[in-house]
């Protein structure tokens, strides 16, 4: 589904990302771990054509992302709060995204009804604009909005951060369901090794822009990762 070729990103002379080759097959749930500055967000930004690669390219479902916009209809993402429109209510935001993805109000409502538990009664009909919601609640809105319009590639940057423990578990459930769907490729990044291991089929660790570990999830994965990141 996603093919990375000789990808690198440099700022002045500092290389922040350098991935020679990486292939993510369709239907995989892919976890990206690493410390601050490892290049996780840079990789996702490149994948979404928000920044330009210095060399190489990424091909998302046969579309080269920095050459064509053809990847947009089947790719959904939530990187940070800058993906939210602060002056809308959550409902308006969902319908707006729905409109852009060719979903009518009923479709969106059906999806929201499915995730009522995840919202925990704090999102819908709350008379608050997105800008006035707490960080965690903003994140809930952003994550669910990526599910609108049956995307085939879902990209979530640090989805577990700022969420309360119950919501983390509910989110894990949602991601696992997505992972079980053979048509959906999920890409998740996190600082939290445990969470990533719990939801992903495959884990890739980045360090200072280099790909240092690439392994399928098994019983030993967590141990191996913890050993790698041990101080």
């Amino acid at each position, binding site marked *: 589904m996603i093919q990375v070729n000789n990808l690198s990103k440099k700022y002045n002379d500092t290389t922040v990302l350098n991935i020679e080759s990486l292939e993510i097959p369709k239907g995989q749930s892919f976890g990206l771990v690493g410390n601050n500055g490892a290049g996780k967000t840079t990789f996702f930004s490149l994948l*979404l*054509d*928000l*920044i*330009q690669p210095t060399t190489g390219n990424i091909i998302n479902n046969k579309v080269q992302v920095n050459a064509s916009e053809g990847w*947009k*209809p089947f*790719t959904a*993402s939530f*990187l940070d709060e*800058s*993906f*939210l*429109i*602060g*002056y*809308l*209510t959550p*409902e*308006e935001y969902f*319908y*707006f*995204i729905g*409109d*852009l*993805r060719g979903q009518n*109000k009923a479709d969106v409502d059906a999806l929201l009804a499915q995730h009522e538990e995840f919202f925990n009664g704090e999102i819908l009909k*709350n*008379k*608050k*604009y997105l*800008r*006035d919601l707490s960080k965690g609640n903003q994140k809930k809105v952003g994550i669910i909005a990526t599910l609108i319009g049956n995307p085939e590639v879902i990209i979530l940057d640090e989805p577990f951060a700022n969420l309360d423990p119950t919501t983390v578990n509910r989110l894990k459930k949602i991601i696992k369901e997505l992972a079980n769907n053979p048509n959906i490729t999920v890409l998740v990044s996190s600082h939290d090794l445990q969470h990533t291991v719990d939801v992903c089929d495959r884990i890739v660790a980045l360090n200072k822009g280099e790909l240092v570990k690439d392994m399928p999830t098994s019983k030993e994965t967590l141990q191996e990762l913890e050993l790698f990141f041990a101080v």
Partner: protein
Amino acid sequence: MFTKFIYLEWKSFTRSASFASNLALKILMGFLVLYFTVAFLALGVGAFYILREMKLDPLVTINKFLMYYFLMDLIVRLMLQAIPVMNIRPLLTMPFKKSTIVHFSLGKTMLSFFNVVHAFFFLPFCAVLIYEGYDVISVLLWGMALFSIVFANNFLNVLLNNKDHLLAIFITITLILAGCQYYKFFDITNYTYPFFESLFHTKWVFVLPVLVLSGLYFWTYNYLKGDLYLDAGLTSKNDIAKTEHLTWLNQFGTLGTFLKNDIKLIKRNKRSKTTIGLSVMFLFYGLLIFGSGIESYDTPTMHILAGIFVSGGFLITFGQFVPSWDSAYYQLMMTQNIPYKGYLNSKWWLMVIATVVSTIIASFYLYFGWHVYLMIIVGAIYNIGVNSSLVLLGGAFTKTPIDLSSGKGAFGDKKAFNVKTMLITIPQLILPVGLYWSGTYLMNENLGLTLVAVVGILGLALKNKAFVFIEKIYKSEKYATIAAYKQKS
């Protein structure tokens, strides 16, 4: 303790976004500041002699209008002067006494531009009074009293800020008073003038404003000190949100989706609301020119400029920041399945609708004759045909993120000022003036108007071609724009 505060202030001043702009701009800004300083100084010095030339007693005349001067000052403050409350938050848990924090914040407001600017007028005026042989002590006491009132206004603004309807009330009162005076029903200055006079002539009266000032300082101090909690004075107000579906816009497809969003953007953010207020003011700009109040404005060039400004207020104030309005969530827009064309088209329609509405409201200019209104209509045609596309083109180069929640900056961001956007204003304003002028020169005013209108209609006919070009520019500027919007000021 205070030195620490001053250190922080110095850092925040030298590292502010506007300071970090390029050298050419700094020089330009320097000249502007110098120009205004000189202009105000000249006014302060000149006022005395101009008034005497007009056979008026300078001091008496000034005293007569001080009432309005201070009212206007208060209104301007309520509109523009922000109170420095938010940057107190990180200090609360540090080992500072609360009273020190409050004293410092209040002291900081006293150094604000809105106070300093009065010195440029009053100090030279007082100097001239002394030079002309007025009693030195009286002049000094009078000056001190006036500055006490200026600072009293400063603290009043702190106390009254965030009370929504006050501004409208003050403006209404001022307008009613001014109106009554103009039509000679009732002259408020008859009652206030003796007071300002006595500030000068009676030695002890200056104590009154000074006492009022100290009282207000004490009051504001207590008010702020008692409110120094995150859930009291330092909280940010949350609006009660109401979901609006605006379903009637659904019939317009993608265009409707964006229009819905833009309407909410304008309705729910402070910054955009200020912009709307400003564009309404543009509507009345023509009164200055067609009302022939100012003689030097009564030229054909100024007429056609007025025609463009009257109908184009929204286009100018809103349009010039087009992608910046969406700067806070530009990354979202860039990853969604959005054709640039649909996005730009919605902004274009918004400007067209606003221009048409302004033109209809401007029909009160018919009072000055059909020719004046014709000029406004021609201006509107040019705005719709040419300027709306140009403004969008200019937007591609405007890379200033907009803080929607702040009302400041609506009067033009310094950083939004770059060579490319400046170049684009040439066809926006100078081309129609040139066309009109050459038409008038060759034959008569009607030919001038026809030329401007024809170019406007031509622009409208070529709109789709222009949009293809604009779209290309937006695409090539995409990464630079995203990077610029990420750096919040």
